[in-house]
């Protein structure tokens, strides 16, 4: 087993009927590493995340996650593999509004036995794991747990989303512009909490954003434009 969590080799991808969007000769993310990936909109960022999540298949090349070649798995197996090993945080409105905060955090454990077992092993029960994570992320009020997710402020919602991404200790957390809806102070505070939790869980963090100001906080930072050798579309 190598120490690379993600390794891309000679990856190529194009949407049907469009020019090649991604051409990445090589990319790796180490275990436990936090990586800032700068990607303006239209740069193929979302597509890359789709490929890493196994939702799309590359036209050519190899995507390895935890030494598993994603293309070798069936689509159902890729879905399972994704939830077992990856937590996601999106830009905003990450939560299912009709579920409570606790239920939102517990969601991945209903779809992944591995994460369910890990959460129970470490905290005793899934509910305790959720409460523990939320407490670490600064949401300590137990009454908050049973409130509807959409009754929270945006900043609180993003922390709930982080707790959901981290529950059951996935090896990788992928964050897609999670701070764009937060103001500058809240951004950094959120990131520090996220770093601390990733460290504690031993998870790698792949953080995709166009906001360069956050880059220095990471172990490493990269620009998708440098990574991607495909002829770039016009930036908007």
């Amino acid at each position, binding site marked *: 087993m190598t120490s690379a969590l993600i390794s891309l080799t000679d990856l190529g991808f194009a949407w049907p009927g469009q020019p090649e969007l991604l051409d990445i000769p090589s990319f790796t993310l180490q275990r436990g590493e936090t990586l800032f990936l700068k990607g303006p909109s239209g740069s193929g960022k*979302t597509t890359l*995340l*789709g490929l890493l*999540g196994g*939702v*799309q298949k590359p036209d050519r090349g190899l995507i390895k996650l935890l030494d598993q070649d994603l293309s070798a798995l069936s*689509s*159902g197996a890729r*879905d*399972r593999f*994704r*939830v*077992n090993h990856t937590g*996601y945080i*999106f*830009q905003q*409105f*990450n*939560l*299912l*509004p*009709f*579920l409570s905060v606790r*239920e939102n955090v517990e*969601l*991945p454990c*209903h*779809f*992944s036995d591995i994460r369910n077992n890990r959460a129970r092993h470490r905290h005793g029960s899934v509910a305790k794991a959720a409460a523990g994570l939320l407490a670490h992320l600064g949401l300590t009020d137990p009454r908050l747990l049973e409130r509807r997710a959409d009754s929270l402020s945006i900043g609180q919602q993003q922390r709930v989303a982080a707790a*959901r991404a981290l529950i059951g200790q996935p090896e990788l957390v992928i964050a897609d512009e999670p701070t764009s809806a937060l103001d500058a102070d809240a951004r950094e505070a959120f990131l520090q909490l996220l770093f601390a939790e990733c460290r504690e869980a031993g998870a790698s963090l792949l953080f995709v954003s166009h906001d360069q100001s956050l880059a220095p906080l990471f172990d490493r930072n990269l620009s998708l434009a440098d990574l991607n050798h495909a002829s770039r579309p016009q930036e908007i």
Partner: protein
Amino acid sequence: MYLFRLALASLSNRRFTALLTVFAIALSVCLLLAVERVRTEARASFANTISGTDLIVGARSGSINLLLYSVFRIGNATNNIRWDSFEQLAQNPRVKWAIPISLGDSHRGYRVMGTNTDYFEHYRYARQQPLELSQGREFADDPFEVVLGAEVAEALHYKLGDELVLAHGVATISLVKHDDKPFHVVGILKRTGTPVDRTLHISLAGMEALHVDWKNGMPAQGADRISAEQVRSMHLQPTAITAVLLGLKSKIATFSLQRDINEYRGEPLLAILPGVALQELWGLMGTAEKALFVVSLFVVITGLIGMLTAILTSLNERRREMAILRSVGARPWHIASLLIFEAFSLALAGVLLGLLLLYVGIAAVQGYVQANYGLYLPLNVPSGYEWMLLGCILGAALLMGCVPAWRAYRQSLADGLSIRL
């Protein structure tokens, strides 16, 4: 069943549309079941009009015609039966009882029927229920006594002891009245929900007394007239009646006696089995009933299409929900099952609410319908057929749920984890 819980939570988030959809389905289900129940009960009550009578005998005509005038008091007999034919029938060893019926007069649109007290004793309707008096007594020796059906008494506000004048012929407005020989009410029957309720019952002697001085279809004039007082002292023996209801000692003899009557040499007679003739008559009216049923089926389909529309329109605004579910590990088939669960839950809630509406509705109008239409709507549990209908509705909802499920499946494959608005 975590997915089911998710589907319910998502539905409750859209509770206004969901409630409307459930309500539309509930109304359509209620309508379907109500039509079905009224249909079944109308048919049953139709079949219940007469029971316990094995054969109806009249002058030779059509079986439905005979049934209509002898049981439903609709239309007229084409011919009469001679009294001696009736006596022969009554003395037949296979016959247990014979009720003579004489029709032809009316009172303010209600038919008058001449018969004897055997009628009250042997006539049965519904499930072998006998006629019962709610007030007074049966008519007795005096020819000018009348026993009213429940509806006649109620609609015309008659009570015991009232006097009434019968009219000759059956038209609602009759020009010739038997006003020289008034009758008085001695009894009122309990409601039966059959044409008995709309009948005035007098004795054969009374019927004869009305027409004793008539010649060539016209009342006698002047000195030839016979007063009610004079009539009372006369021997009033009818010479002809309209129909005969027969009860047999053994049902097995029904067909052979029917054949014998149909081949009777004395005069042309026709004997019918009431059950068979009722079936024939219902067959004539069945089309309307089927049309009603088809219409209510279409209403159910409309309700389900409404549900389909509501779910399909919601799909677009729920792309975010789908993408979030995908990111936490839901597979496309999970998303598809969510939508099928959703359709099923809506339909199930609709069916249950529909049943509730039906029972509340029946409980509310039961008395009114029975009193006014003679139709008893029972509050019993759904029949096998009704369960089958409900099952079909749920099945159809499941099938329809496959449409948004398929679309969401495709959508979630295409969208993946990207959240689109």
